[in-house]
C-alpha cells in the first residue's frame, strides 16, 4: 500500500477525482515517479548546448545535474517523423462501407488500445476483446495494459497516437489540453450508432443519464465514461441494527444520531484528510446541492461573481463546522490516507464514511466477518432531495483524432457498452456501469445492491450534474479543498472558508492564461 496517492488520480474530463478505477489497488502514486521521468524520453541528437568546458563551470553543471528538475520539462519537441500529421487520416485501412450491422465501417486491420491497469490486469476486457474479434475476424485487437498512461504523451507529440485509451491513474493525460489542441475525436457517431444488443435503440439511449455531460469538454463530446462513480455515505447496517439506530435521511436525524453515537464512545464520521476531494465530493458537494439546488454549483463552475458567498454554501459550511466543534470527526483523519481511514471505519472506530462506489472492491480483503457495507445518499436538510447523490460517470475512454483505425476504436466502445460486457464488468469488479438496466437482476453482493438502488433513487429525483470546476481549474480546486480541510479539521471559520474559496475563484477569473469554460 502506498502512503502517497494523488488526490487527483483521474484526469479524465468526466470525473476529476474518483480513484483511478475500481480495482483494489491503491498505489497510484504520483509521488513515486521520479522527476526525471521525462528526461528519458528526450529525443536524441539535439544537443545544441555550446561546449563550455571551463573547469568550474563544468563542475557547476554537474552539480546542477543533481537537481534534475529542469530535465523534467525536456520532452521531445524536436520535429519528429509524422509530427505534422494532424491525424485527418483516421480510418486508413478501414474503408469498408457502413451499415446498421457495421455502423462505423470496420474493415479489419489492427486496433491499438492502451488501458490503465492499477494492478488487477483489467480482466474484464478479455470478454470485450473476444466479442469484438468474433464479429470482426479480420480485426486484431491489441489492448495494452499499463500502469502509466503518460508514456502516450510523446506519441501525441509525434502525431502517432494510439487508436483508443482509457485515461486513469497517476499518469493520466490532461484531457482539457488535448481537447483544446484538437487532438481528440468527437464521439457523436458512437452515440448515434445502434446499440450492440438492440439495433432499434441508439448507444446513447441505452445509457443512464450523465454520460454526455461527463464526456463533453468545451462543447465537444470526447469522452465515454462507462462506470458509475457514485458517492455515498457508507455505514455498516449490522452495527446500526445492533445498536438500534435508524439510518438517518434528514440532516437533523443525522445530527441527533451523531450525538447518540458519540455517547456510545464511537465517532460518527471518518474520511481521509490527505485526499481532500473525498470530503468535497462525498459531503460538501451533495450538501450544498441539497440545500440550494444544483444551480449553486453551476454558478460556481461558471465563476460568477460572489458565487461562493451564496447562502447555500454558507449554510453547508456552518453545518460542516459543527462537525468539528461538536467533535464528531474521528481524531487523526488529517494524516490518514483513504485506505487508512477506510480501515479505521471497518474497525468501527467511526460509523459513517464518504467514499465512492469502489469502496467494496478496494477493501475486499479487509472487510470483517458480519460487516454489512451499505451505501446511502448523504442525509438532506430538504427531505425532497434526500435521495440525490453525486453519481458521476467515470473511467473515461478517449479516441485520438489521429487514430489510425478510428472505426475499430468506436466499435470496441460499442461492444464495451453491450449488456454482456457490462454484466461481466460488474461481476469482476463489483461496480455499476452506465448501461441502463444491465444490472437490474444481477445479484452480486449486498453493497452492490445497495449501491444500484441508491443510484436508481437518485436518478429518480433528478440527474446529478457533475461539478466541473475541479477539472476545469485544478489549481483553484486545490485551494478550495485545502480550505475545506482547514474548516473541517483545523481552525478556519465559516467566513474564512467562504473568503478563501471566493478569492481562489476571483483569482482564476482574473487570470487570462487560464482558458475559461461554462456550462
Amino acid at each position, binding site marked *: 500500500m502506498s*502512503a*502517497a496517492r*494523488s*488526490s487527483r488520480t483521474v*484526469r479524465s474530463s468526466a470525473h476529476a477525482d474518483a480513484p483511478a478505477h475500481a480495482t483494489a489497488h491503491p498505489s497510484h*502514486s*504520483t*509521488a*513515486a515517479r*521520479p*522527476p526525471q521521468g521525462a528526461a528519458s524520453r*528526450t529525443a*536524441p*541528437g*539535439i*544537443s*545544441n*548546448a555550446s561546449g563550455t568546458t571551463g573547469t568550474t563551470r563544468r563542475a*557547476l*553543471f554537474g*552539480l*546542477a545535474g*543533481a*537537481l534534475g*528538475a*529542469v*530535465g*523534467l*520539462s*525536456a*520532452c521531445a*519537441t524536436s*520535429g*519528429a517523423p509524422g509530427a505534422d500529421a494532424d491525424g485527418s487520416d483516421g480510418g486508413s485501412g478501414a474503408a469498408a462501407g457502413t451499415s446498421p450491422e457495421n455502423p462505423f465501417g470496420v474493415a479489419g486491420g489492427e486496433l491499438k488500445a492502451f488501458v490503465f491497469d492499477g494492478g488487477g490486469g483489467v480482466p474484464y476486457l478479455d470478454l470485450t476483446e473476444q466479442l469484438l474479434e468474433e464479429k470482426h475476424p479480420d480485426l486484431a485487437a491489441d489492448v495494452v495494459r499499463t500502469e502509466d498512461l*503518460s508514456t502516450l504523451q510523446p506519441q501525441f*507529440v*509525434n*502525431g502517432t497516437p494510439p487508436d483508443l485509451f482509457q485515461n486513469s491513474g497517476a499518469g493520466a493525460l*490532461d484531457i482539457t*489540453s488535448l481537447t*483544446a*489542441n484538437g487532438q481528440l475525436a468527437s464521439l457523436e457517431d458512437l452515440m448515434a450508432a445502434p446499440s450492440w444488443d438492440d439495433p432499434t435503440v441508439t448507444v446513447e439511449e441505452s445509457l443512464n443519464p450523465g454520460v454526455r455531460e461527463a464526456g463533453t469538454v468545451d462543447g465537444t463530446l470526447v469522452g465515454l465514461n462507462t462506470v458509475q462513480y457514485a458517492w455515498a455515505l457508507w455505514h455498516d447496517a449490522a452495527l446500526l441494527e445492533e445498536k438500534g439506530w435508524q439510518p438517518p435521511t434528514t440532516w437533523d436525524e443525522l445530527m441527533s444520531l451523531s450525538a447518540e453515537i458519540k455517547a456510545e464512545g464511537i465517532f460518527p464520521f471518518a474520511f481521509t*484528510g*490527505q*485526499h481532500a476531494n473525498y470530503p468535497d465530493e462525498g459531503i460538501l458537494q451533495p450538501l450544498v446541492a441539497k440545500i440550494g439546488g444544483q444551480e449553486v454549483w453551476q454558478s460556481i463552475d461558471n465563476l460568477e461573481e460572489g458565487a461562493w458567498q451564496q447562502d447555500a454554501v454558507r449554510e453547508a459550511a456552518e453545518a460542516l463546522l459543527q462537525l468539528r466543534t461538536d467533535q464528531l470527526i474521528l*481524531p*487523526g*483523519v*488529517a*494524516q*490518514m490516507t483513504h485506505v487508512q481511514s477506510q480501515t*479505521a471505519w471497518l474497525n468501527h472506530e467511526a460509523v459513517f464514511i464518504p467514499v465512492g462506489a469502489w469502496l467494496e472492491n478496494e477493501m475486499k480483503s479487509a472487510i470483517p466477518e458480519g460487516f454489512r457495507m451499505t451505501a446511502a445518499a448523504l442525509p438532506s436538510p430538504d427531505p425532497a432531495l434526500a435521495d440525490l447523490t453525486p453519481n458521476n460517470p467515470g473511467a473515461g475512454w478517449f479516441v485520438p483524432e489521429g487514430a489510425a483505425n478510428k472505426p475499430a476504436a468506436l466499435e470496441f466502445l460499442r461492444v464495451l457498452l453491450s449488456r454482456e460486457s457490462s454484466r461481466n464488468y460488474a461481476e469482476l469488479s463489483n461496480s455499476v456501469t452506465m448501461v441502463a438496466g444491465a444490472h437490474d437482476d444481477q445479484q452480486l453482493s449486498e453493497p452492490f445492491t445497495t449501491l444500484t438502488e441508491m443510484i436508481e433513487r437518485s436518478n429518480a429525483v433528478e440527474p446529478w450534474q457533475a461539478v466541473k470546476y475541479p477539472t476545469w481549474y*485544478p*489549481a483553484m480546486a*486545490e485551494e478550495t479543498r*485545502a480550505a475545506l480541510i*482547514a474548516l473541517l*479539521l*483545523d481552525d478556519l471559520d465559516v467566513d474564512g472558508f467562504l473568503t478563501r474559496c471566493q478569492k481562489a475563484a476571483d483569482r482564476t477569473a482574473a487570470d487570462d*492564461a487560464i482558458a475559461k469554460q461554462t456550462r
Partner: protein
Amino acid sequence: MHLRGRWWLILTFITPGLVLYSVFVLSSFAQGVQISFTNWTGYTPTLEYVGLDNYVRMARDGAWWRAVSHNAALLVIVPVVTLGLALLLATLITRGGSGTLRAVRGAGAYRVLFFFPQVVPVVIIGIMFSYVYASRGGLLDGLLRLVGTDVLSVVPNGPLGNPRTILLAIALAAVWSSVGFYMVLFLSAMSGVPQELYEAAALDGAGRLRSFAHVTLPLIWSHAQTALIYLAIGTLDSYALVAVMSMTGTAADSGADVMSTYLYRTAFSFNSQFGYASAMGTVMMLGSVALALVTFRLTKREELEY
C-alpha cells in the same frame, strides 16, 4: 608526434562521455530553458513563444513564493542539523574513547548502524516516516504513550496533518536519511589527519573540544565545504521525500509544498502548463548554481597542507 598520438587517446576516452552528457543532460537543460519561453502543453509538436510571460507569472504567483519560502526554511534546517550531527557523530566515533585520542568502543558497529539509512531508498524512508508519525500504532505515538500522552494531544491532527509542523516533520526525515552518509564522509576525512597533530595538541593541554575546533575542523574543511554544497542542492530539490510524505505537496494546507512539488503539479495536475513549469525548473537550476557559487565563496579558506 607524441602530442598527436595522445590527442587520439584523449578523444577516444572523452567522446562517449561527452556525447552522452550532451544528449541526456545538457540538451535537456537547453530544451527546458527553451520551453520556459513558450505556453507548451506537452502534447503538440509545435511551440508558441510567449516571451517572459511565464517568469512574470511566477513573480506574481503566491503559491510559488510559498514554495520558495519552504525551500528556504529547509535550507536553513537540513544542512545545519545534518552536518552538525554528522560531525558530532564522526568525532565521537574517532575520538570518543577513553583519553582523548582513541576511538570509541564498537566504532565499526556504529559506522554500519549510522550508515544504514543511506542504503534505504528515499521513497521507502518517506513511507516509513509516515508510519512513524501515524496516530495509530506509530512509533512516535507509542513512545508518547509510554509517558502518558499521545501524538494527537501533542500535535493536533498529527505531524503530517498539521500545516505548522509538517515541514519540520519532513525535515527530520531528511536529516535522518542523510546524516549517516556525511558521517562516513567525515570519518574518512578524519582518518587522513595525522595522529601526531592530536598528540601534540594533547601535550599542549587541548581537550576534545579544542582539538576538534583547532585541529580536526580546519583539516577536513574542504570535505565540509563539499558536503554543504551537495546537501544544499539536494535540499533545494527535496522532491522525492516531500512528494511521498505530503501528497506531492498538497497535504496539510500545502504546509510542505516546495518548488519541485509545485513544479510537478503545475506540469502534471494543473492542465499541463509545461511552459510555466519549465520556467520554474529554469529558475531552480539558476538558483542551484548561484547557491553553489555563494557557498564556495562564503566558505573559502586557505588550504592547509599536511
